[in-house]
Structure formats: C-alpha cells, structure tokens
C-alpha cells in the first residue's frame, strides 16, 4: 500500500515539474526579443499574406488562449511543423530517438557496470598502487573536456589509425544495395564504437569514484566486522556483504548525473555526427528552427524526468531500509 502511495506521489510530482517546464518555455518564447510574429513569419510576405498566416497560426488570439491551445496541442502530440524539414516535429524527433537511446543506454550501462566493478576493487585495495592508478585515472576522466576528448578520439583512432569511420551511423552504400540484416547491424555497431568508447571513458570515472567512496564507508560498518569474525572469506565479504550495499548510492547517482550525461551526449553526437536528439537540438538552435528546438528540449526534459522517477522507484525497491 505504502509503495503505491509513494509511487503515485512521485509520479504526480513529476507531472507538476514537467508542466512547470512546459509553461516556463511558453512564456520564454513570448519574452524573447522580437515578437513571435516577425520571427515566425517571413518578412518578404505582403502584409495581407502575413496577416493571414498570423491568423492561421492563432497568433492574434489573447495570450491565455494561446497558452491553452499550446498545452492542448502538446498533450495531443502536436508539436508543430519544423521550419527546416517541413515535417511534423514529432515525426522528426521520433526518427532520431532510437539512435540516441541506443548510444545512451549502452554507454551508461557499460560505464556503470565497469565503474562499480573497478571502484569495488579500488576500495578493497585502498592505498595500494592499483588504487592510486585507478583513482587518478578516474579523476582525469571525470574532469575531461568532452568535445576536446571526442575530437582527440576522432583524430587518433578515426583519422590516424583509421580503425573507425569518421562519423554518421551507417555507410550509405550498404543500404542502397540491400545487404542482409547482419551486415547492416555490424555496420551500425562499427559506427557506434567510437562515440560509445568516448562516452564510456567520460562516464566511467565518476561511477568509479562514487563506488569507491561508498564502498569505503560500508567497509567500516559493524556487519563487515561480524562477517570477518564469522570467518567468511575475503571474496564473500567483498562481493556479497560490502559491494551489494555500496552499489546503492551508485543507482541514485545514475539519475542525478543524467543531466550531466545529456550534456556530454549532445556534444558527442554533434562531433561524431550521430543522428540523435542532441545533435538535432544543436542543429535547430543554429538554424532558428524554433518548433524543432522546443520539441527536442521537451523530449529531453521528459526523458530526464522519467529516468529520475525510475531511479527513485528502483532505489526504494532495492533498499528495504527506505520508508515511503
């Protein structure tokens, strides 16, 4: 029962926040210099044509009516038409979403798993040379400047060594000549490896550091002493008793560091010309494609919020000490 109350409370909170973001965005667009009319309507048009378009877009209605229409349109899945593509924004975004999700979830999961594993070892061997090397490298990874690091990866592994393609997600010739599914999948994987490796290295450091400090505090707990006194082997204490509990804060941090990962993800997509949401947002912003920029932004906000909800629920489920 409590669990249901907790879950619905979290969900309601999330909706309120999303609604707030939606509203702030609406008013930001109206606050921006130059009214929406001149921005969205081509100045080359005759005044009559312009007036007609303004009426068609509903820009002559009072602000509050415009807001109602905006909210209604959003919840019916109508985000307007992209200026650049001339297609519905939803359609453009939905075509990009799988690419982002593929790159993003794979890199986050791999980085979290590797970070937890390495952090566990680092904490277990605290003060050793291995710990020193791991902690310092994690620190360096954590403070790397994403675009520069991505450029270096591209320059060294893509250009100098030539192991990986320089960008994109597929080689067009494979898709024209109707290759088999396996060939296509391998081609996508080949294109994905470099951005994946970049994101992995950028994120693994923070997970490692977090797991290490969490593990160190768990190792001081009484129940670890009890486990030792019982004569359990090091391996069992490390993996079963300590690491399981120490990994909990890492779960929360996946949610909290998501904002940070989204920034890194957008930059990585941009540099490796990976056709995802982040790159689309940057493209829309550079080309003054307001409906598209707004759509990308709202989608990113929705993804961040729902991921945080999932993490909250997961945490409550994993840690029996949490009271709802």
């Amino acid at each position, binding site marked *: 029962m409590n669990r249901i109350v907790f879950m619905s409370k979290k969900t309601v*909170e999330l909706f309120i*926040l999303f609604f*707030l973001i939606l509203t702030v*965005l609406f008013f*930001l*667009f109206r*606050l*921006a*210099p130059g009214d929406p009319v001149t921005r969205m309507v081509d100045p080359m048009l005759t005044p009559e044509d312009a007036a007609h378009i303004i009426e068609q877009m509903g820009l002559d209605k009072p602000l509050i009516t415009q807001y109602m229409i905006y909210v209604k349109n959003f919840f019916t899945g109508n985000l307007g038409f992209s200026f650049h593509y001339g297609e519905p924004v939803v359609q453009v975004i939905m075509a990009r979403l799988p690419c982002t999700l593929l790159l993003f979830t794979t890199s986050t999961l791999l980085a979290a798993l590797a970070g937890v594993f390495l952090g566990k070892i680092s904490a277990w061997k*605290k*003060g050793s040379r291995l710990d020193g090397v791991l902690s310092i490298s994690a*620190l*360096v990874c*954590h*403070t*790397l*400047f*994403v*675009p*520069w*690091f991505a*450029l*270096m990866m*591209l*320059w060294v592994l893509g*250009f100098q060594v030539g192991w990986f393609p320089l960008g994109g997600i597929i080689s067009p010739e494979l898709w024209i000549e109707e290759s088999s599914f396996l060939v296509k999948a391998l081609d996508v994987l080949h294109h994905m490896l470099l951005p994946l490796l970049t994101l992995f290295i950028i994120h693994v450091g923070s997970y490692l550091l977090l797991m290490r400090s969490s593990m*160190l505090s768990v190792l001081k707990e009484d129940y670890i002493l009890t486990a030792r006194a019982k004569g359990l082997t090091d391996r069992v204490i490390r993996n079963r008793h300590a690491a399981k509990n120490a990994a909990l804060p890492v779960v929360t941090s996946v*949610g*909290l560091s*998501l*904002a*940070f990962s*989204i*920034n890194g993800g*957008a*930059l990585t997509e*941009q*540099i490796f010309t990976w056709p995802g949401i*982040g790159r689309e*947002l*940057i493209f*829309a*912003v*550079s080309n*003054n494609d*307001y409906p598209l*920029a*707004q759509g990308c*932004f709202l989608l*990113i*906000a929705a993804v*961040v*919020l729902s991921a*945080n909800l999932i993490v909250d629920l997961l945490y409550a489920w994993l840690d029996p000490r949490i009271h709802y």
Partner: protein
Amino acid sequence: MSHKVGFINRFSSSWKIFIQNPLGKAGLIILALFALMAFASFWVHLLGPMYDPMTGVDPAISRSVGPSTSHWLGTDFIGRDIFCQLMEGAKIAFIVGLASAFISIVIGTIVGMVSGYAGGIVDILLMRMADMVMVLPSLVILLIVAALFGQLNIWMIVFLIAILRWPAVARVIRSQTLSLKHRPFIEASRVAGASNMRIIFKHIMPNVLPLAFLYMTFRVTSAILVEASLSFLGFGDPGQISWGMMLQWVWSSGHMFQAPYWLLPPGICISLLTLSFYMVGRAMDEVLDPRLRKEGK
C-alpha cells in the same frame, strides 16, 4: 584580538594538512601557472597590435602555420597568434569559473541555511525546488536560451550557469545547518533574544562557510566546462576569446586533422585547469573532514 589569533592558528594548521597532500600541492601549482598566464594576458598589447588575440593578424602569414620563433604555438586560420589567444582564454576561464561559482555558492548557502534553519513548509518547498533544478541539463537549457535570445554575452552565461548549479551546494549546507541548529551555542543565543536573521548570519554562517568554499572549487570546474562546451558549439560570447571558442575555430575551419599544434593546447588547458580545481577541492575535503585523513596507508 584572541579571536583573530585563533583564526590564524587554525588557518596555518589547515594549510599544513592541505600542503602535505600531494593532490592539493600539484593542483595548487598548476592553478598558479594558469593564474600567471591569465595575468600575463593584460600585458599582451605591449607586444604590438599583431599579437592582439582577437584582431591581431600577422600580415606575413594570414593562414594557419605551425610553431615558429615569432609565434610559439603557431597561428590560427587568419594568422592570429595561438599562444596569445590561449592566455586570453585563461583569463576568461578564471572569470567565468570564479564568478559563476561565487554566485551559485551565495545562492546555495543562503537557501541551504534558511531551509535547514526554518524547517517545515519552507524547507520542503525550497528543497523540492532544488531537486527540480538539479535534474535540468545546464548545457541544453543554455542552448534553448541562446536559441531564443540570440548571442548571449559572457555575464549572461555566467549568471545562467550559476542559477542552474546552486542546488548541490544548498543540499550540503542544509544538512550542515540541521546539525548546527540544536547545538548549545545556537540555543543560547536564541534564549538571549537574538533574531532569526542574526542567528543565521552571525552564528550559523561562519560554521558553514568552509564547506561552501569547498563546494565552490567543484562549481568552478563545472562552470568552466559548461561555458567551454557552449562556446565550442558556437553559442559563446562572440566578443570574448575562450578556449572552447578556439576549439570551435579549429573544428569549423576544417583544420582538425591538419593542425595538431592548434587542436591540442586549448583542450589540454581546459582539462588541466578543471582537474587542478578538482584536486584542490579534494585536498580541502580532507582538511575539513578528518575521517578522510586518518584512514589508509
């Protein structure tokens, strides 16, 4: 008087612990080198107009060439000196990092103290707000603002980064305030009739400030990275040269694979500067939290 001596003693003993930490020492040395670079940028104009990082073009070159005796790190695509740009970039990085970190710890400290001290509905509302701001990806927000308002100037960027990055500070300060709230000296001053404002700013603030400064070093790191990323994407302040913008020029002018002398320095500088702030922060962490110091080795 004795109060002052106590402060100096405390400071010098903290300093000893700090400087014994290899991370802190290395971080401080790198930081000092960058500070020197930033200061040197004020005297670049003495070298003559050719070395102006923004407008100075070497008439004999006017394209990108590698390092030489007259241009230590070479020139960019229109013949501007890369080393001079690097110094100018150091100045901008310090301004952006320190100013925005300062604003965010001021906001975070005040929110955290008020929230922790007041409790109740004020606490709940402020912390909910912190949670909300915390999950927003700052670069994406800055991008959307840049899309709406056109080119942002450097102070606008500093301010936006600051108001997106206070929640972490507020949370830490709040928990510290909660632990201070029921200490005898706070109770005593309340009994003596001190107002809430006075208790917060006179008695609680001095005790949370060290923690706030520790968090400032981490905020500096993230502010520098966000500004550099924004500039790299081409939405920085066009009137200022930042390291991110230098990378943007390498990339957009198509010199990425031809000019390593131009690609390497800005990136190395950004990474080193943020790393050194981070290392100083970690070392300060050990000064403030003795539990971290004693264990190990």
